[in-house]
């Protein structure tokens, strides 16, 4: 039986929607043309948010905070999280974070997390813009806490431990871990619950301090100003007590050398009949070449 309540933090990222890439998705210099791609909630981070909300449902009194590092507009995904059930959001934003690779990002996030001191940190397995799957594990290493990757489902929860089902390539594994820990979640985990009508109406005026300044609207300023739940926190480098040299381009050892546009081409074609024998042969071939399975 679970009696203690959990402090849960979801790590989320706003990413360019690389799933429907048009012709103008890349710029001539090989970098991503962010203007041409809509900014969305990284899909696996939504699976992570759902897992966090399930945890909250299991442990009464728990709180879910979503933490994101990004430019001011990333506050959109914090509001979206609140519409779906998160209690609050924190935006880690500072020009000094710009250009961070996974090492610098995980450093910045771990500084913020050290300040929050959560019991469970949940993140999507990877972001669709970089596909590295490194940030979650690096955060766990920096905080020196256990990590459970590829999570799909919470099997059990007690006051001292959590049991999680991990999806692996050829099956699954059930592992138990003490708190605190980092969990990274697969796309195969349940989809995130939809936005909730009343929560949308309640949290739509939630704003970061810089958004409020930019808006300079009397109503929203007073509405947000009076209500704590409408305040999205904004943390800078100084707020999380981070070391400048480990951040941004300076703190990022990863350098992109070149980017190539790969066009898939079929080399040769093969004709098959619809007979069982032919289909069986094809299946065997695809499995042995790891195209399937």
């Amino acid at each position: 039986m679970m009696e203690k309540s959990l402090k849960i933090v979801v790590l989320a990222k706003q990413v360019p929607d690389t799933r429907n890439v048009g012709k103008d998705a890349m710029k001539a210099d090989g970098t991503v043309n962010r203007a041409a791609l809509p900014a969305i909630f990284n899909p696996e981070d939504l699976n992570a948010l759902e897992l966090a909300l399930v945890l909250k449902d299991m442990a009464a009194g728990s709180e879910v905070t979503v933490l994101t590092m990004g430019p001011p507009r990333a506050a959109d995904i914090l509001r979206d999280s609140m519409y779906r059930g998160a209690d609050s959001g924190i935006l880690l934003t500072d020009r000094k974070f710009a250009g961070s690779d996974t090492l610098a990002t995980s450093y910045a996030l771990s500084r913020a997390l050290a300040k929050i001191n959560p019991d469970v940190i949940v993140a999507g397995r990877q972001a669709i813009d970089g596909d590295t799957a490194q940030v979650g594990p690096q955060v766990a290493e920096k905080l020196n806490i256990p990590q459970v990757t590829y999570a799909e489902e919470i099997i059990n929860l007690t006051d001292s431990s959590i049991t999680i089902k991990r999806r692996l390539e050829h099956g699954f594994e059930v592992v138990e871990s003490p708190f605190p820990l980092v969990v990274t979640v697969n796309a195969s985990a349940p989809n995130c619950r939809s936005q909730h009508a009343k929560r949308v109406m309640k949290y739509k005026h939630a704003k970061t301090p810089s958004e409020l300044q930019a808006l300079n609207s009397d109503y929203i300023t007073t509405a947000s100003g009076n209500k704590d739940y409408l305040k999205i926190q904004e943390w800078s480098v100084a707020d999380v007590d981070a070391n400048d040299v480990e951040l941004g381009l300076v703190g990022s050892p990863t350098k992109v050398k070149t980017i190539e546009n790969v066009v898939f081409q079929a080399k040769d074609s093969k004709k098959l009949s619809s007979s069982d024998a032919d289909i069986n042969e094809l299946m065997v071939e695809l499995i042995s070449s790891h195209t399937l399975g």
Partner: protein
Amino acid sequence: MANFFLDNKDIQYHLNHPLMEKIVELKEKGFEDKDKYDYAPTDFEDAMDSYKRVLTIVGEVCGDVVGPNAEGVDHDGPTVVNDRVVYAEGTARNIEALNQAGLSGFTLPRKYDGLNFPLICFVMANEMVGRADAGFGNIWGLQDCAETLNEFASEEIKSEFLPMVSAGATCAMDLTEPDAGSDLQAVMLKATWDEEQNTWLLNGVKRFITNGDGEVSLVLARSEEGTTDARGLSMFVYDKKHLAVKVRRIENKLGIKGSPTCELVFTNAPAQLVGDRKMGLIKYVMSLMNAARIGIGAQSTGLSEAAYREALKYANEREQFGKPIIQFPAVYEMLSNMKAKLHGSRALLYETARFVEIYKNYAHLSKDRKLSPEERAEMKAYTKLSDGFTPLLKLFTSEYCNQVAYDSLQIHGGSGYMKDYPIERIVRDARITNIYEGTSQLQVIAAIRHVTTGSYLTKIKEYESEKCYPSDMDSIYKKLVSMREEYETVVAQVTSGDSEQIDFHARRLVEIAGHIVITYLLLRQSTEVDDYRNSAQVYAKYAESQVASHVEYIKNSCCGDIDIFKAVLDEQL
């Protein structure tokens, strides 16, 4: 990834109607809830923004969950296990998704945990659910029964039942019996007062009850022993928790298979009286039915939307004789007519819903405070418009969704007849819309007095005097004026005869009025949005030919005509 709100500019257009300002004002009563509830709007813009956001959620759930589940639900259908209905798996998932998104109690006041949204928004949501899966639309749309409780039940009943509905409890309205279908005066289900248990007890049988095993049921029953007509009937509310109503069977239907149509056996079922005794049919069922007819209007429009989209997609994809079939005149003409009927249906749907919305809100307001003479006059005018437009809406939208679905299947050719495409299900689902909640023939009976008393004519002349149309569409306006003149002529001709004459030509007269109204609505819309120009032009052509045909028929009809048709009465089998 589909969103049935964001992908539909026509619905969005109707949400932005100028009358919304008045509607929001009436619904929010000076935004009195703003400090009491964290989700209440503070002003008109805030309210409209909330409506858009929440309708976007509805659109997403419809596009991503309800729509994709429709085929499975149609195939599996509900079953009866131990006298209870078990929904198809997809239906259960639909309910879960909509409840998880907090989309129940759409129009109920916030003090009963509702969203306090205008009827217009509920109609929009209903339409989107109908487009996704019309059968499921019935289960979800029945939450509207709670509005009847909200309007007429005691505070005690309201605080017991309305929060249940806001939390996602499904509803049913138990009216029909084996011998009481269109003629509800014949209802026999017995309600007796039990002194010992201090409650009403219901005994008898109901048939064809949509979602009959829902958590909250409104039941029409005979409370006055020895009576045989409407004056002996009262309205009751029954909570499923008593388990005193058994589902004997569910019907095996042509369409809307996901919606369980139940035969119910009441055995000493405890129930509470809603409102006043003896007013069951006269007052409360009439209110329930009027709301349900708007619901069917929404469902029908949703079905037309679905059918039109399937046809457009298929006609673009399917190639014959070396080109997509949409390029053939026979096909593009059909598609344009379908689109015009779809836009016309929606125009009539929201025009009617706005009228109903305003008078209902005044009725609610009149319980809080005395209405001013102007407000009372306005309420009366909108009530009259609602009475006239509701049967027109039910008649036209349900007939049109059948026509649009029929033509859509035709465009699919042989493929459309197979289970491989959704249109086959849409055609079957559409077929009930002009039957239930009052057949088209009954809508004509409800509408004809607005022909004979001249209230349609008054409204038509009002549209005419607004002269609201784009300058280059004067020819359509002129056509409408001459259609109105023809209408007056044939109405005069028919009403000079006896009541049988009027009944005989009723449908033709009502349809002429409807065609003129719909053309005006589309014409008015095309002054604001260019997209409607085309539909207005196409609909005007269609209306003109239909009106001419009806006028011709009536003019050439003399008194002896009816006897030709009566010959069938002597036919022996």
